[in-house]
């Protein structure tokens, strides 16, 4: 069953054109800038969906529209079968959002923050809920400390507790591990996976998306250029690996590698060989063929999954042009 249905969602902002300041005071000129350009996707109940993309791709704007704090210029959003704009109050009870460590009052204590937000939702006992969440996040010893004194990791925990205050069916997470060290990021990821909620998360980290999400969408210049499962993404990755090889006899290496079924193309780059592989997950197969030659350099060009991310976004850019 589809929990979130987004159809042709578009957001256009007015971007002011630089002008002589006096002219911009009386007759400012604007041009349209599409932050989100007609994107469509569906998220099933209990699914974790990841939105990836470079800065300015439209990830946060998409989440803001799904939260109802940014009005779409076009398209529709349905949450659990209800149209967002016309059933906003009803839908608000179902979701919550985590914008990094934002939405927290630094001048309030962790408990006061949670209590304030708990009072905003239809919760039987807000005080009990605030205490439960602090306990769940192991923040009880810091309950009465001001959030301004917390480390980023602790602030993220309070922010996550805030997002869980109404026990939401849907969680929107905007870069939930941004700026966190490896250990804290892993803790947050473990919490999120244990929740069993419908989650839409944005992240810069492809590895995180692959670990967390059941499907991944890649946004580029406001367009959803790729949407598939992490397995297919990984398969695509294994189909598109590029290595730079330098041996004591590159011509011989080229001849041998050309016969390998996994090798798609070989190009000469300066004095080295650029080898494009096809559906090869284990590059040792390639190295075995040339083990009688002296290997001077062996380097993966598209640095793992991140490289694939660049491939997908670059390809989308070329298509646009």
């Amino acid at each position, binding site marked *: 069953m589809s929990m979130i249905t987004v159809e042709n969602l578009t957001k256009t902002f007015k971007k002011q054109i630089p002008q002589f300041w006096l002219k911009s005071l009386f007759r400012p000129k604007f041009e349209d800038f599409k932050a989100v350009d007609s994107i469509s996707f569906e998220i099933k109940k209990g699914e974790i969906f990841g939105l990836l993309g470079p800065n300015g791709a439209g990830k946060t704007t998409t989440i*803001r529209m799904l*939260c*109802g*704090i*940014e*009005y779409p210029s076009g398209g529709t959003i349905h949450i659990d079968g209800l149209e967002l704009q016309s059933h*906003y*109050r*009803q839908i*608000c*009870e179902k*979701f*919550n*959002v985590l*914008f990094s460590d*934002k*939405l*927290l*009052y*630094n*001048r*309030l204590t962790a408990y*006061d923050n949670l*209590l*304030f*937000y708990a*009072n*905003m*939702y*239809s919760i039987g006992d*807000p005080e009990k809920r605030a205490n439960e969440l602090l306990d769940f996040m192991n923040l009880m010893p810091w309950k009465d400390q*001001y959030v301004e004194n917390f480390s980023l990791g602790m602030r993220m925990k309070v922010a996550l507790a*805030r997002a869980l205050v109404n026990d939401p069916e849907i969680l929107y997470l905007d870069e939930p591990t941004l700026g966190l060290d490896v250990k804290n990021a892993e803790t947050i990821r473990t919490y999120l996976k244990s929740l069993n909620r419908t989650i839409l998360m944005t992240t810069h980290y492809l590895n995180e998306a692959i670990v967390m999400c059941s499907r991944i969408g890649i946004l580029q210049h406001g367009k959803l250029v790729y949407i598939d499962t992490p397995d297919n993404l990984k398969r695509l990755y294994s189909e598109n690996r590029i290595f730079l090889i330098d041996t004591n006899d590159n011509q011989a290496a080229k001849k041998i590698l050309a016969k390998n079924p996994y090798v798609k193309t070989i190009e000469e780059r300066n004095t080295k060989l650029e080898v494009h592989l096809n559906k090869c997950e284990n590059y040792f197969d390639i190295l075995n063929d040339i083990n009688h030659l002296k290997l001077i350099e062996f380097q993966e060009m598209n640095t793992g999954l991140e490289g694939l991310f660049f491939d997908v976004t670059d390809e989308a850019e070329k298509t646009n042009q």
Partner: protein
Amino acid sequence: MKKLERFRRIVKRTLSFSRRELKLRTRYKWAFLSNTIVIPLLHALPMILLYWGIFSMIAGEFEEVNAGNYLPWLLLGALCYQVFFLGNSFFKGRFIEEKYWTTITGTLIAPISKYYLLFGVIIQLGIEGFVTAVLLTVLSFIALPTTLFSLFLLFLIFLLTVAMGAALGLINGTFFLTNENYCIFFDYLAYILAFTSTYSIPYEVFSSIHPIVAGIVQVNPLYHIIKLTRSIWFGTFEPDLLYSLLYVVIFVICLMIIGVYLFSKITRRYGVRGY
């Protein structure tokens, strides 16, 4: 039972806003005491002293101000003015902070009526402005004592003034969130309301300038609030006071409805800009 539970929840949600505001304001306690007691008095004092001097010389020239009442007349005017500005400036200041703290989204996505926010803030401002109000009232009482019933009525007027200032401030704050350019109109409006409120200049002065100016004063709800306050204090009940009261009450109710409506609609439609 269900109704009681609903009422309890409404009160709890409203008070959670008051509680949050008070906690935020009292995070730095000396700054809070200074901003709520010293600064309002410092604002009011020069005006009071100046007009004290003027009225001590020419008080008899005006119908409503005489040698016996000019001091409480001034103090009560200053009280209404300060309380109105406390309310009017609140939301703009709060939304500036919330915009840059990036916390405003939490309130916007909360599934609650935004009346809780307004009423919560009115209660908080009532508490915050109470000290200043008591100080000015005590000074007025020393200058010219009044009855306990008048003090009670004055308290109600005080709440009405806070509500009016807060509702107007909410409209201003809403525009501040979406487009700061529009705020200037509300700032101008607040100054016009203050200037034509007769808090320091008797109505006769305005009416002698031009009928249009007198008309502006007559439509100014702050003028009616100050007029009501002084009449209650001096015990000069006239038939047109009922009209003033009705006018102020309707104006405040309308302003609150418009304020909450605009806040809900405009922030949803145009979002928060500029952070």
